[in-house]
């Protein structure tokens, strides 16, 4: 499982303050902690970042990669900020991941950037109008995005299809639709398409003390269907232990009594 550490987000007050003050230390510490905990990518969510977006993203990428030798997942809707991030990214530690394109024409520019900078890209299976109703509709949208990616020259193996996880507390039936989509996405190509989810969306809106449990169980079900990557919190030890244990059951990790410590 590819782990994309989600903690560096403009939504978090501490991160937002550090971003605004251009204070690298709290951001570097958070990046380093996630990396040490097993994250393969560090997500860098600067939000819409309309003002000084390019300069902010460049600063974020350089600050983080000065400390952490891992590729980054660049998460912004601002295309010019994204491009600045791709330019600043040190590919010595791996190719960057763009988060994200979709079937909305406004997001097609992201595919162009992926091709231009040889980046991987998350593709949300949503279009301009409304949320997808079920797994089949998600697959239809995925196929359209895949065709579009081919036009832009983005190889299919560089795309991570994201079924868009919705919160279980308001749209309970969508939980299974997304799981089914993970299974179906893989069948859209040979070799199978890669998949990704923003895991914590599932527990948005539920009482805080239940979120961990809901994330853990849902991750297990997604992994069973072959999930490639998750944007998640690697600092959540119980979640990481669940992931490692699921990998043991799936035969992806060799069992030893100390497997949780590895």
């Amino acid at each position, binding site marked *: 499982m590819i782990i994309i550490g989600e903690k560096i987000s403009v939504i978090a007050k501490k991160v937002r303050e550090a971003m605004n003050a251009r204070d690298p230390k709290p951001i570097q510490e958070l990046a380093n902690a996630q990396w040490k905990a097993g994250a393969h990518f560090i997500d860098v969510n600067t939000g819409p970042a309309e003002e000084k977006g390019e300069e902010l993203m460049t600063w974020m990428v350089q600050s983080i990669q000065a400390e952490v030798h891992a590729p980054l997942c660049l998460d912004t809707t601002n295309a010019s900020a994204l491009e600045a991030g791709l330019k600043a990214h040190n590919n010595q530690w791996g190719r960057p991941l763009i988060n994200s394109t979709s079937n909305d024409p406004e997001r097609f520019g992201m595919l162009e950037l992926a091709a231009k900078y040889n980046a991987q890209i998350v593709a949300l299976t949503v279009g301009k109008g409304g949320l997808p109703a079920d797994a089949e509709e998600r697959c239809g949208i995925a196929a359209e995005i895949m065709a579009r990616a081919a036009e832009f020259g983005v190889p299919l193996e560089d795309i991570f299809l994201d079924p868009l996880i919705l919160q279980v507390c308001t749209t309970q039936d969508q939980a299974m639709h997304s799981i089914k989509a993970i299974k179906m996405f893989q069948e859209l190509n040979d070799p199978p398409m890669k998949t990704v989810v923003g895991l914590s969306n599932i527990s948005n809106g539920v009482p805080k003390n239940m979120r961990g449990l809901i994330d853990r169980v849902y991750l297990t079900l997604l992994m069973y269907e072959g999930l490639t990557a998750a944007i998640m919190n690697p600092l959540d030890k119980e979640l990481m232990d669940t992931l490692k244990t699921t990998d043991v059951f799936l035969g*992806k*990790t*060799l*069992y*030893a*009594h*100390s497997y949780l*410590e*590895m």
Partner: protein
Amino acid sequence: MAYVVPKESCSGKVLNVDFGKGNKALNIGGENCLPFLSFEGELPNRPVIAYEIQDIPPVDWPDTVQNAYKDVSGDPVTWAKYCQNELKAKAIALRLVSTHPDRDNHSAEDAAITIKDVLSAIEVPLIILGSNHIEKDATVLVAAAEAASGYNCIIGKAQEGNYKTIVAAALAHNHKLIAMSELDINLAKQLNILITQMGFDKEKLITDPMCSALGYGLEYTYSVMERIRLAGLMQNDATMQPPILGDVGMYVWKVKETVASESDVPEWGTLAERGVAWEAMTATGMIIAGTNLLIMRHPKAIETVEKTIAELI
């Protein structure tokens, strides 16, 4: 369209371990492909075969292999020099059989003297093995590590029941270490984890998943070795990337095919050839499974396996 050979690439790599010193030092491991599949990756080092000698005359070895050393095996220094100078051994494995409580119960201090004598007589790298007695090895190998300080030896074997003291000694005197478990891949991984958690560098470890002779469980050893390699290479499991040891000789030269006389079983053919073939076949199975270091006894068997390696590489 021209046929393209499908290639599998591995995300992991077997760790490179060096032992010995000077221009006779050796490297094992370092490959990022399955055994001998050099068209799929890098295979920097060929498997190494070490000649096994003992600290006392090998009276318990079958005649076929005892005879091969009959003029030199009276003392370990002469034996070691013979292997190095006459047989052109690239490495020697000294087994401290005499320290076993059921044999001569020699002390750790006696063993230390033997080790120093052997080390000062040879230039090729030395592997130092205990008598495979859990408690006794814990004292003998500690003394051995100290006696061989500065020679960059391989010492072993550290097992679940005695690894702590042996690891500490190998760490203190900068030796490589054999971690042995009994035909159980999960315990092999666990032991490697426990040893590295003591601060021992995984780049200094060698895994011995336990050998067995052809006809006596070779397929279990083969399977465990193969799965270790697949975990290390395909799943990039860092705990399963040390080179693998096949301690072949001691398991082969006791089975009835290497001992039974021609008059008892005439249909089995010449005893002398039978034993050599048995050791060579067992060792060949091991290298195909991924063994990087073999410990063997009969010169003719070693010669045969060296030839096979040369043809495979």
